[in-house]
């Protein structure tokens, strides 16, 4: 009986724990704290944070508990991440949630969404330079797209073993948009530029909104077919929303479905950060490059907006360039916040939504391009 008790105790987490588990459990608690107390993207950070706790409870190997052990509950759920099932479903929900009106009213703002993707390719070069192989460098670069599902989608294809650190880095930086972006935006703009008021966008007809997802899908997927799973679902979700006749489907896509997938994705991505897989030198490199990527993407958007102003008759507020980094709608909210800090009567939110949404399309196209190049 004594032996049985000793064997039981030796198999508890207290006996199996090492310092790396403790570190990861602390990281999980910090992430939950950021989500709950600071309300930084709580819908993402709370599931991811708790997933980190789940993934870092020390258990014995081959007991069918860990996320990387085949046959475990977590391993089954993780299948949706490793086989790119969850990201397109998230995109379906995003499409059903998103109103593309502001982008349709002033399509020129879509270029800001393209400019912000410079961060992805710059970071790709940076990752290559510090010794990452091309497939991993591409997965790290995509963090600059500030789009969690896209980052997971590409990493699952190119560097599955990096899903944990890349997904956590992408979602953490998305959550930290209000901390990372404002200093860069202020640094690159003058007060006069931040005070620019943009004119009201024109009214967009219902028919335009219905035609857009079809035209957008055909055009983007003919140009970058590898973006089909993401953009196909994004535009399909938007068509469900705009065509009105399938309101039930649209409501499911933008509520129940996206919520379920977010829970499964968040928990499993969090659980995939097991200490022995996550706490490596590579992860530090990924987090550093991720921050760099985010900063470059923000700066590219702002600088490109300033360049556009040299040619545009109706000037745009360069702050909205920062919203090109996807992170819908967080980065658009940051633009509004920074703009209103200068002038409380300046409402930039709806204008910032245009580059914000086109950034989602841009980052999906960038991911498709990288995937295509790495598969050649």
């Amino acid at each position, binding site marked *: 009986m004594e032996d049985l008790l000793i064997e039981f105790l030796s198999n508890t987490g207290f006996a199996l724990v090492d310092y790396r588990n403790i570190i990861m459990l602390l990281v999980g608690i910090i992430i939950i704290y950021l989500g709950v107390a600071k309300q930084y993207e709580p819908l993402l950070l709370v599931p991811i944070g708790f997933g980190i706790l789940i993934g870092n409870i020390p258990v014995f190997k081959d007991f069918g508990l860990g996320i990387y052990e085949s046959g475990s509950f977590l391993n089954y759920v993780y299948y949706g991440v490793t086989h790119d099932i969850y990201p397109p479903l998230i995109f379906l929900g995003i499409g059903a949630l998103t109103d593309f009106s502001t982008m349709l009213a002033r*399509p020129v703002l*879509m270029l800001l969404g*393209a400019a912000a993707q410079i961060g992805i390719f710059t970071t*790709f070069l940076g990752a290559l330079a510090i010794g990452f192989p091309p497939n991993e460098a591409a997965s790290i670069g995509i963090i600059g797209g500030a789009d969690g599902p896209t980052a997971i989608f590409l990493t699952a294809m190119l560097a599955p073993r990096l899903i944990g650190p890349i997904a956590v880095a992408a979602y953490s930086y998305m959550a930290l948009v209000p901390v990372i972006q404002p200093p860069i935006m202020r640094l690159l703009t003058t007060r006069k530029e931040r005070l620019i008021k943009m004119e009201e966008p024109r009214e967009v007809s219902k028919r335009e909104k219905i035609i857009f997802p079809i035209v957008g899908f055909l055009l*983007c997927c003919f140009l970058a077919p590898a973006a089909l799973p993401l953009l196909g679902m994004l535009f399909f979700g938007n068509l469900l929303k705009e065509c009105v006749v399938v309101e039930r489907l649209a409501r499911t896509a933008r509520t129940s479905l996206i919520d379920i997938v977010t829970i499964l994705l968040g928990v499993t991505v969090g659980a995939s950060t097991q200490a022995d897989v996550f706490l490596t030198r590579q992860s530090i490199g990924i987090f550093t490059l991720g921050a760099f990527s985010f900063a470059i993407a923000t700066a590219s958007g702002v600088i490109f907006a300033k360049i556009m102003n040299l040619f545009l008759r109706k000037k745009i507020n360069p702050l909205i360039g920062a919203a090109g980094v996807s992170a819908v709608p967080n980065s658009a909210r940051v633009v509004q916040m920074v703009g209103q800090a200068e002038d409380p009567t300046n409402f930039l939110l709806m204008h910032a939504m245009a580059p914000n949404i086109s950034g989602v399309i841009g980052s999906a196209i*960038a991911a498709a391009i990288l995937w295509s190049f790495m598969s050649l």
Partner: protein
Amino acid sequence: MFGFEAIIAHDGLGISVIGISIVFVSLILLSLAVSQVHKLIGLWDKRNTYYQRLKKPQKRGDQKIPSDMPVPQDIRRASRQFKLLIEWIGEPFPLPKLLDLSEKCGLSSPHSTINEFIKCKLIIPDDNGYYMWNKQIEEKRSNA
């Protein structure tokens, strides 16, 4: 491999330049397409009007021309000179061209004369932005 050597070895610069170019091209094309959608919808909405216009093209000579306007004597005199100019330009004619030509030919007070022609319907619009010489008024004048 590290640094620039690694970038070159993996063709990083080529991938980055082509990659960002494709992203820009895609979004530029999409923005161009989007910017035309509302115009195409507008054309579609007016398709019946355009169809009717194509089906029944309006002949310039078909329109009803007023023929009972009195023509003052001095205008009658000037009309001979202007009629020659109009024959030289050809019908239908743009008003600025007639004005320009009459100035070049040194006709007196071309602005007010042409204005008088329009008032007494010797020159009439063809509803397509051009003008025509009203032959019916002229014939009536000759008969008188």
